């Protein structure tokens, strides 16, 4: 096991996060991301075979909401938080696999 990620792996993550990295940053994250992954990997050492599955830290059962309508947003307000919109629609690059 190498102690850093490949340049390709870091650039792939950067692309998914939609951020640009300088060459220095790529080098820095190759090391830092690897350390992060190693830390997270420690979770595999925890013995959980005898534990009950924990869905939520609260012991209470779910409280259900009655089927009554509340306030909604105006489409124009929604579009203020949308990078690209078209009329009342949110616009994104075409999705494959549809």
């Amino acid at each position, binding site marked *: 096991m190498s102690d850093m990620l490949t340049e390709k792996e870091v650039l792939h993550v950067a692309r*998914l996060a939609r951020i640009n990295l300088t060459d220095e940053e790529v080098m820095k994250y190759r090391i830092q991301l690897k350390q992060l992954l190693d830390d997270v990997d420690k979770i595999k050492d925890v013995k959980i075979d005898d534990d009950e*599955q924990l*869905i*939520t*830290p*609260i012991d*209470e*059962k*779910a409280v*259900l*909401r*009655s*089927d*009554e*309508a*509340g*306030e*909604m*947003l*105006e*489409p124009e307000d*929604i*579009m203020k938080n949308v990078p690209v919109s*078209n*009329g*009342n*629609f*949110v*616009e*994104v*690059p*075409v*999705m494959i*696999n*549809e």
Partner: protein
Amino acid sequence: MTDYKKTIGIEIHVELKTKTKIFSDSINGYGRTANSNVNVVDLGYPGTLPTLNVEVIRLALKAALILNCDINREMHFDRKNYFYPDLPKGYQITQFETPIGTDGYVEIEVNGDKKKIRIHDIHIEEDTCKSIHYKNHSFLDFNRAGVPLVEIVTEADMHSSEEAMAYVEKLRELFLYADISDCKIEEGSMRCDVNISVSKTEELGTRAEIKNIGSISNVGRAIEKEAERQIALLEKGEEIAFATYRYDEKNDATIMMRVKEAGNDYRYFPEPDIPFVLIDDTLIDDVKKTIPMLASERREKYMAFGISLLNANKIIQNRSLSNYLNKFLDSGIDLVIASNILLGDISFYLNKTGLDIESTKLTDEKFIDIVKRISSGELNSKVFKEILDELLEEDTSVEEIISRRGIKIINDPTELKTIIEKVIANNSASVNDYQNGNTRAIKFLMGQIMKETKGSANPELVNKLLEEELNK
């Protein structure tokens, strides 16, 4: 190639008929302005949390009970993680480990043969947003995001397109009648995915998945076409790709959308924002009480009262007519006559006016009165048709309308006999025809009598008396 056996499994998504969405209190509605039924939860804004709609649990439980499923008394939700713009949270909340119902069945009938189709599970999940694609862009409408769905997954128990269509039709009928969903395939509130493979042996072939088929008859067409395609490949010695298809109605063919990658990893894990949901006996009993008489039971009952299969089916297709007729099952009235006038003149009136039968002035008492009068011959179909508008639009009783109109049905045999004798005397040619074996001549004589009485004679009685007179 009849030696190939088709094996078919079906997944159906059905939108539940709630007022609000599953995890937010924005409106669950179809056909509104884009992005107008949306709040911060539906858009996955940071810091928002889901709140589970009680009506979703009730409707999904009702569905699971109707499908004869075992109920998961302590269930939770799971996150299905994938990165796609139709899900701003980055995951869909669904049920993976503890679906609300498992191991159920639906009974179908094809050409008189009954068969049980096993239900693997029924689970609850949220719908994604709707996307419209144009050139290099996709346009998103989040009105559908968070609409409650149940997905019903069968075992691969079907072996013909007829069985598959019968299953989809049966499920639709069940959910419509139980008021779980409006099941409009064309509007997407019911969506069918079909898995199909062919094989000459007991070992199953590689399956193809046909997504989102747009109508029940297309389910049948798509299966036939896909089976043909697979058999042709196998006959050429080629392999079937594990892939997703869609059915193209215009070209009547299945078209590949994508090859399935093995082991799609959705990293399912329990949804920590929603604690366990407990389904106790009280809730189950409560929901059971909301299950109305289902279509198959209605059909059986109607036919036991002498209504034809055709008419029984016609009534069942119209839930409000069927509910109306059900009110009279124990009333002792002639249900064949009741169903005939409901399907005939009354339906004609309802279609013409766009009214629902419950919003007319036709009270239960009035309906019983009408059916009784028709069965005793006090009212004939001609007069009924004439006074129909008044019956349905006024608070007046049948008696009042009839007497106001001066309508009198002649039920007196002596009075009728006089008229019959007169008609016979004036139409000796037809009488001869009848007596020489042309039985159709009696229809002409009947017509003359009805004309003579201006339609007010009791037709059954006239028919009986006329036959007696002619056969003397």
